[in-house]
Each structure stands twice: as C-alpha cells, then as structure tokens.
C-alpha cells in the first residue's frame, strides 16, 4: 500500500523504476542515423565579434570585450565606408564616460553602450531569491527560507531568521511599517516578522499557494497562485478580509503583486492577464490582456503614465501598459530573462539573465524607444535576473552567480 509511505520510500521506488527503464538497450540504428544526419549538417557559423565576446569570460574579460567591441566597430565602420563608395568613414559614437571607480566602456555596433561598474559593497547570502526595502533597510529572502536584514550603514547582514523548513518553497517577501511578510507556499502560510527583533509574530493561513506579497500599511495583499485569488489581509487582525478571484484555480495562477497609481496589480500567467484591483472597493477594475511573447509571470514597475510587467523565465519580453487606457502599448524584447523591473530616477532598469555561460548585466530601457540603450556590466561571473531595489542612496542587486547582494552607487545608473 502507498498510504503512509515516506518521501524517502517513494523516492527509492521511483529511482528503482527509473533504473529499470534506463537499462533498456539503445537501438542500434539510433547512432547510425544520428551521425548520418549530423555529418550532413553544417554547424552554425560564429562571426569574429561573437568569438571575441566569448573570450570575454576570462579574468581579463573587460579588456578583451573592449578590444572585441573595438574590432567590431572598426569592421562595421570600414564596411560602411566601402558601401558608401569610399567616402570618409563616419566618426564612431563617443563612449559614454563611466561613473564607476574603474571605468571601462564600449559602444556596440548597434549603438548599445556598455559600461563596467564596480560594486561599492557586497553581502554574501546563500541562494538569495528576493529583495525588498522600505527605503532604509534592505531585506533579502533566501530559497531556504531565511529572511536576512542588511544594514546599509555597515554593508553587512545584520540579523536573520529562519522561517519553516529549509525545503519549503518560499516565494515572496514584503516590508512595510507593520513588519516583514514572507510567503511559504508549502505550508500555505504568510509569516509576519517583527523587523526589529526578527521574531515571528504571526503565521497567517493564506490560501492554497501563497506566492507574491505586497504590504502597504493598511493592508497586505497576497497572490494565491493555485487558488486563483488575491487575498487582502488586515494587519490589525492578521485575518483575511477579502478574497478576489482574478483567474482560474490550479496551475500557474496569480504570481506577483504590486501597488501603484492607487491600484493593486497582479500578474495572472494562466489567464495571460494583468489584473488591476481597486483597494477601496476590493473589486477588479481592469483585466489587461498581455499578448505573447510576454508572459505575465514577473514583477511590476509602476510610475505615472506607465506600468511594466516582466515575464520571469518563461520569456524575455516585458509588456508596457498604459494605465490610462489599461492596454498594452508595447512589448519589449529584453534579450534576456528579467524578474522584477525597477525604476531609478523614473527610468526603467532590469537585471538580465542572458543565459548560461554569459555574464548577466543591468539594462536600461529607454522610454522613448522601448529598447535597452545602456548596459552595466558587473563582471564575468555576475548572475543577473534577480531583484533590484533602491535604498539608502544606493541600488542593491541580487548576484545569483556569486550568491550575494551587491551595492552600487546610483551615479552608475546615470552616466553622462
């Protein structure tokens, strides 16, 4: 009988079955046909600038990438000159001065400016999955369920608290004047933590699969991914006071929530919508269809006149919504995966995961063109795609490649 069987026993049974299946002999023709097809197929051709860029993963990557970009520029300029009948080559764009302590910058053939920046601080955190701030203190949540308070005065992890079992699926973290709030999808719990003592002061049942959370003083809003709802929790009673159905139950339902422009926003990937809720009435005021290739499973950035929602790892696109009409006005391919976009001085930035083996970067999305026009490089091992927040006069970014949170001067984000 299966009932009462432990995870270990079930795992062992699955392993035994898989070992049995895996022992099947490989059909002889498989290799013959594969190689027959393979050797009739040409490998992709990499162009010189691609090879130079690949060299940029070594210790002297900045220099190599710079040389690579310079060579590419010269080649492009030369070809342009030849096509123009031998007329004088147009001057190459001037390199934007870098604000970093060790400035290195280059301009790609497409006009994208890349600037190397050096962090002003780095805090080691094992498996950071989310980052939030109240503007003064930075909080990060680890994949093993530890909430860590980072003190900007010392650039250190000042205190931390373990929430539940390390194997649980911890998804979201939020902070407001009432405390720090963390969702645990496995135990269907919203943890409330005292931000000073880090004591867990409440464990609040929060739907089927609590995921994203945002706290705005008078209310805490939680996306219930499998329940298809957004829950409103009253911090004075720690009780759910409203449940708003925003999508179907099961699967990839309501994911991340945000507050802005007088509304609560939630992405519902299995309905391909971003839903806008009026917190005064707890009712839906708009269901905004997010067209492909964007998938509304990422975070939001909100400012007057524009709302962006990213696609997590399902797509590299981010959708821009006009909040006046509640319609998507642009879908922007970021060229990499981004989780939560952030506004710095009103300008949209994303931390980009550009794929395995390629260093991540921070990208600035030009509002006028809806294209990335500036990339900040944080080194060859930087792992992008994580959260980024602004606090204590700095930007703080999860570096998934090095298990740390890095601190950057805000001046790095407005070079020239």
């Amino acid at each position: 009988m299966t009932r009462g069987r432990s995870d270990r026993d079930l795992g062992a049974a699955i392993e035994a079955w898989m070992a049995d299946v895996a022992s099947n002999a490989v059909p002889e023709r498989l290799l013959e046909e594969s190689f027959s097809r393979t050797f009739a197929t040409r490998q992709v051709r990499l162009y010189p600038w691609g090879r130079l860029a690949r060299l940029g993963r070594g210790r002297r990557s900045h220099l190599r990438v710079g040389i690579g970009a310079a060579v590419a520029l010269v080649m492009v300029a030369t070809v342009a000159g030849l096509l123009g009948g031998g007329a004088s080559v147009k001057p190459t764009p001037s390199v934007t001065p870098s604000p970093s302590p060790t400035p290195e910058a280059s301009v790609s053939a497409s006009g994208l400016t890349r600037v190397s920046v050096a962090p002003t601080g780095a805090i080691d955190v094992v498996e950071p999955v989310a980052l939030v701030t109240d503007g003064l203190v930075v909080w990060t949540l680890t994949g093993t369920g530890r909430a860590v308070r980072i003190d900007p005065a010392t650039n250190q992890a000042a205190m931390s608290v373990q929430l539940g079992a390390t194997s649980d699926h911890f998804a979201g973290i939020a902070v407001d004047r009432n405390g720090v709030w963390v969702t645990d999808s496995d135990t269907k719990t919203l943890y409330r933590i005292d931000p000073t003592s880090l004591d867990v002061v409440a464990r609040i049942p929060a739907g089927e699969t609590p995921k994203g959370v945002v706290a705005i003083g008078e209310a805490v809003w939680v996306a219930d991914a499998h329940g298809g709802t957004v829950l409103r929790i009253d911090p004075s009673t720690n009780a759910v006071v409203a449940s708003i159905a925003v999508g179907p139950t099961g699967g990839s339902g309501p994911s991340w929530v945000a507050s802005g422009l007088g509304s609560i926003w939630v992405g519902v990937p299995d309905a391909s919508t971003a839903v806008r809720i009026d917190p005064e009435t707890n009712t839906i005021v708009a269901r905004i269809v997010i067209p492909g290739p964007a998938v509304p499973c990422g975070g939001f950035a909100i400012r007057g006149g524009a709302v962006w929602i990213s696609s997590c790892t399902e797509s590299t696109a981010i959708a821009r919504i006009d909040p006046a009409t509640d319609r998507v006005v642009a879908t922007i391919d970021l060229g990499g995966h981004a989780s939560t976009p952030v506004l710095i001085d009103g300008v949209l930035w994303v931390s980009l995961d550009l794929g395995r083996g390629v260093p991540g970067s921070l990208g600035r999305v030009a509002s006028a063109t809806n294209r990335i026009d500036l990339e900040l490089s944080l080194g060859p091992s930087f792992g992008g795609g994580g959260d980024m927040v602004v606090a204590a006069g700095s930007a703080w970014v999860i570096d998934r490649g090095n298990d740390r949170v890095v601190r950057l001067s805000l001046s790095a984000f407005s070079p020239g």
Partner: protein
Amino acid sequence: MSVAEVERAMRGDHDAFAALISGSTKRLYALASLILRDTDRAEDATQEAIVRAWRELPRLHDPDRFDAWLHRMVVNACYDEGRRVRRRAEVSLVHLADRQIPDHESRLGETDRIERAFRRLPLDQRTALILQHQLRLTHTEIAETLGIPVGTVKSRLRYGTAAMRASLEADDRGAAATTSEKSA
C-alpha cells in the same frame, strides 16, 4: 568527456563529436525514454537532440558544461516531441491518461503502478524528477540544466512527488474498494 574533445568538436571535428556522443548515448536515450515514455518518440527526440547539439555546438560558452548543455538539448527535444504528438493525437493521449485499471482484482505490480502515476505527470515535472532521481543532480544543477530558477525546480519536484503519491494512493483505494465488494 574531456574539455579538449569538446573544444575540438566545437571547431567542427566529427570524430571528436562522435566520441563524445557515443559515450553519452545510453544516458541521453534513457533520459528521453523516461520523459516521453514511448520508445519510438524517445528515439526521434534523442536523434534530434544530437543533430541540434552538433549544429549549435559552436555556441556553447563553457566546454566544462557540455554534459549539462547536452541534457538540456534532449529535454528541449522531448518537449518539442511532446508538443508535436499532443497536437497530432490529443485524443489518444487523453485516453491514455484517463485509462482506468481494467481489473482491480489483478493488482498491478509496483512497477506498473509507478509507471501509470508517472505518465500522468506533465513533462516538466517528469523531467525534474528524472534529473533528480535518475541523473542524481542537485537542485542547483537541475536549475542550471533546465535554465530555470531553483525555486521553480523545488516547486516542480514537490508537485511531481505529490501527484505521484496521490495517484498511487488512488490506485490503492480503487483496489481496496474492489476487494471489499468481492468479499461482501
């Protein structure tokens, strides 16, 4: 696998590529067989993955990661194969998934019961379980292989295991009900 061999294959050396693949074929085919649970489709997917691997090899950024990269090729080929077959034969797949135990009296063996439970899982959960239990990868390695966050890996493993358990328990309840009907 040697890095030098991978680098030679990246430069178009057929012999180096053949040596690399020959040493991995059993593992790749097993991976595809487990994901798709159909020998013909597994063969197609493995073959497609090998051809794609050869074609795309110059794009490999880190020769040290060749194995993980190759696994990803197989997983993606299986997903494509799964989608293709679903489009072509949605009805027959649904029937397969919903098939009832023909006779509870003849209790299914452990292997058959696990097979049935596994077939009911979506491909992404199957894949996560295979990478953990068959290839014995860590959560981080699975995340790297599939190009997804560690949290998503944990989620897929958790839901996959829970679904397997629920399915096995449902089989048990069905068998118990039939037995009690017979004895009444």
